[in-house]
């Protein structure tokens, strides 16, 4: 339903690329997360899809129609894409219901439709309030209702939860995606929080410096990341360099990169590769304790553990099945 091929965008006339030859496809009804660190081009990508930026190269097809190419650009207002902005961008001088009605003013049963989507997000009782009278989470839901009202063929959410605190974030995340699943709309959402992505997306697209690094289902990405970058996006990883390999006495394929997730490390228990370590420093982080270790061969290593009672000398180890191997 959405086909993007070789999409490039530079903001400095080719000196650097915010997006470089990005291609991917999205099937109808899918929820796709675009993940990457800040500056990786996530927002540029969705703004290009929305038509708010103009690509330097490449094409975008929506429902079989080319909406963006070198020859032709369908303006954003004609693309039937709903966009929920990071800062919600509600119209401050319009009430909640007026905000929702704004995009469907030409429809016949607009009042019913507006009430319908407000009910969907659970804000019917507040329809006559102004945006500044709402909490952040409520504003977010209004923005979602407003974007859904015209029945867009594609819904884009740009960093939808980044302005909310952790508790509200979790709560709202499940609410929002319940609504999205209920409507069955194809959705793209941008995030730098991999928790968001893993918990709700059918598919995840990873961007790094404007290029697609990996695109896969959530579970696959976690198990089989194709680069250290992807692995490190989904949790703490420790790169197994030559020095660490000798410390743990685990010779690995020299032509590949290897890493191990922090959670796969075990302390004071049996496993395939172990080494002794001296605890140099313990830092209490609340849910975790951060340990600065000095290994037998003098190498230093920082790990996180849930273990509360750590003695000064420990053994640390891991199993070969948990080693992540990357070709580059």
């Amino acid at each position: 339903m959405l086909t993007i091929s070789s999409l490039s965008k530079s903001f400095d006339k080719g000196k650097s690329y915010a997006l470089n030859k990005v291609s991917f496809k999205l099937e109808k009804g899918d929820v796709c997360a675009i993940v990457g660190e800040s500056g990786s081009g996530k927002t540029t990508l969705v703004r290009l899809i929305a038509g708010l930026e103009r690509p330097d190269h490449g094409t975008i097809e929506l429902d079989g129609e080319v909406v963006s190419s070198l020859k032709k650009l369908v303006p954003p207002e004609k693309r039937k894409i709903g966009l929920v902005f990071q800062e919600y961008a509600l119209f401050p001088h319009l009430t909640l219901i007026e905000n929702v009605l704004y995009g469907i003013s030409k429809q016949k049963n607009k009042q019913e439709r507006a009430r319908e989507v407000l009910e969907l997000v659970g804000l019917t009782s507040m329809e006559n309030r102004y945006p500044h009278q709402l909490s952040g989470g409520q504003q977010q839901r209004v923005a979602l209702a407003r974007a859904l009202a015209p029945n867009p063929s594609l819904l884009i959410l740009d960093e939808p939860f980044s302005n909310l605190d952790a508790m509200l974030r979790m709560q709202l995340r499940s609410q929002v995606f319940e609504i999205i699943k209920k409507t069955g709309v194809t959705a793209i959402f941008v995030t730098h929080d991999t928790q968001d992505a893993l918990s709700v997306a059918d598919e995840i697209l990873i961007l790094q410096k404007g290029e697609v690094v990996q695109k896969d289902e959530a579970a696959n990405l976690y198990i089989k990341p194709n680069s250290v970058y992807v692995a490190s996006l989904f949790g703490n990883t420790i790169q197994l360099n030559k020095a660490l390999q000798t410390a743990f006495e685990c010779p690995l394929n020299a032509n590949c990169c290897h890493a191990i997730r922090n959670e796969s490390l075990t302390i004071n228990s049996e496993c395939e590769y172990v080494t002794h370590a001296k605890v140099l420093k313990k830092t209490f982080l609340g849910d975790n304790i951060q340990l600065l270790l000095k290994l037998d061969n003098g190498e230093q290593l920082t790990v996180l553990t849930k273990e509360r009672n750590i003695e000064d000398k420990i053994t640390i180890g891991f199993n070969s099945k948990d080693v992540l191997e990357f070709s580059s």
Partner: protein
Amino acid sequence: MKQAGSSDIFSIKYRLERLKRDSNKWSIFTLAIILFIALPVISIGVKLFAGPGETWGHIVDHLLPDYIGNSLFLVVVCSILVLIMGVSTAWLVARFEFPMREQMEWLLILPLAIPSYIVAYAYAGLFDYGGSMDLIFRWFGWDFIRIDIMNKTGLAFVLSISLFPYVYVSSRAFFLNQANNLLEASKMLGVGEVRSFFKLMLPLARPAIIAGLILVLMEVLNDYGAAQYFGVNTFTTGIFRAWFSLEEPETAVYLSALLIVIVFALILIEKWQRRNIKVSNSKSNITYIHRKKGSAWMQFFILLAVLIPVILGFFIPLVQLGYWAILTAHNVFNMDFLMLSLQSFGIAFITALITVIVATLLIYFSKWSFLGFIKSIARLGILGYAIPGAVIAIGIMIPTLAFDKWLINTLDYLFSIKTGLLINGTLVALVYAYCVRFLAVAFNPIESTSLKVNNTIPDSSKMLGVGNLKTFFKIEFPLIKTGIFSALILVFIDVLKELPLTLILKPFHVNTLAVKAYEYASDEMVMEAAIPSLFIIFTAALPVIFLNRLLIKK
């Protein structure tokens, strides 16, 4: 990350294709507006090729050194005076607590409500034989020591006391918004008030101060009324003489071109002095200012120091004019005068409306254009404010006269219709010229409020299927109303006060308050000039206070 093969995306072929794709009607409209605004300057440039007039050689030999010398003298002396008055008052008001401080904040802006030529009339009357000073001295039984101010030093004084608020406003804005954190840091390091001011504040405030100073200098070069009344030959009076007395448009054009060069040199200097300075985000820096409270004596002297410029620039001229107004009310105040006032207000209002519309179109059209260079070109439109009114008037005369002649001939030839001049010498040309000159006055407040509206707001309107124009009326206009309103008022006042451009371009039967005051003063009836002057001052004074409110709100 640049990859092999990426570079061809920026080859000429692809660039041209994108240029074709990204050009839209808004780009063309923006260019059209800029062309419309730039036409006067372009005409002067083109007209230069026609060669100078007969007297040009004579002017270069005998008058030009005088024009240059006097204008330079005014620029230097006014700079020194306005810097002393503007920066010191701004610092005192921003940093110290003293009685009536809040009133002084806006009183210090009030001199801007009186056009400099009217201040000049008032001071000339004050120091004249038989003038107010003479009367006061005699009343006390003293000998009158007459100070002759009808010369270039007097002119520099008059211009400075009426224009210093530009520097006051820009430097105070800096001291209020930016300076406090840094100053506190300086104090924490044990540096005293005076040393902090000279070592820290002054260098930091320099860009703001110079921005205000440039505005003053543009007004100094623009002035015609005061220089003419004091008999000082400047570029502007030279342009008038070439146009009206010598009836040599070519010479006026050459003088105008020279003046444009000088003004643009000033602008370049201003840009150059700001080259290394980043505009800091003032939002994060605003903290409550803790003002210093000195001893009673110190407070008294501070009050005195800030009061003197206000007395010189506002109250003395006001009292002098008020006195004259009482003496001449029976002569001046009649039905004709009321009609003239209405006409003057009407012209100012129509101009304000048109200028605000043009400024808004320019801002939003260039925003809706996808071409980067269009946005830079759009900003050229506001340079009209730098160009002296007399120069703009000459620049408008040339193309409108040519257009009218062409139109008359064409209509006659094609349809045998006989008409007179349709634009030149009509209100159309006058309003056009005002619009060119005051576009920046409307542009700046509208732009600054429009920048406060986050781009995602119009973007989300577009994502909801609404086009640019409808988005503007439904979403953006309601959000930038205050900016548009203040733009309307500011242009209205500037048009009301405007003299040189109006003198050259006004239709024969049309008059404004400013021209009326000028005519009285030129006809040796300076006392009669008081009532039209007071009309201008009172209309201008109210929004000056309003402007200050806006500044504080910021």
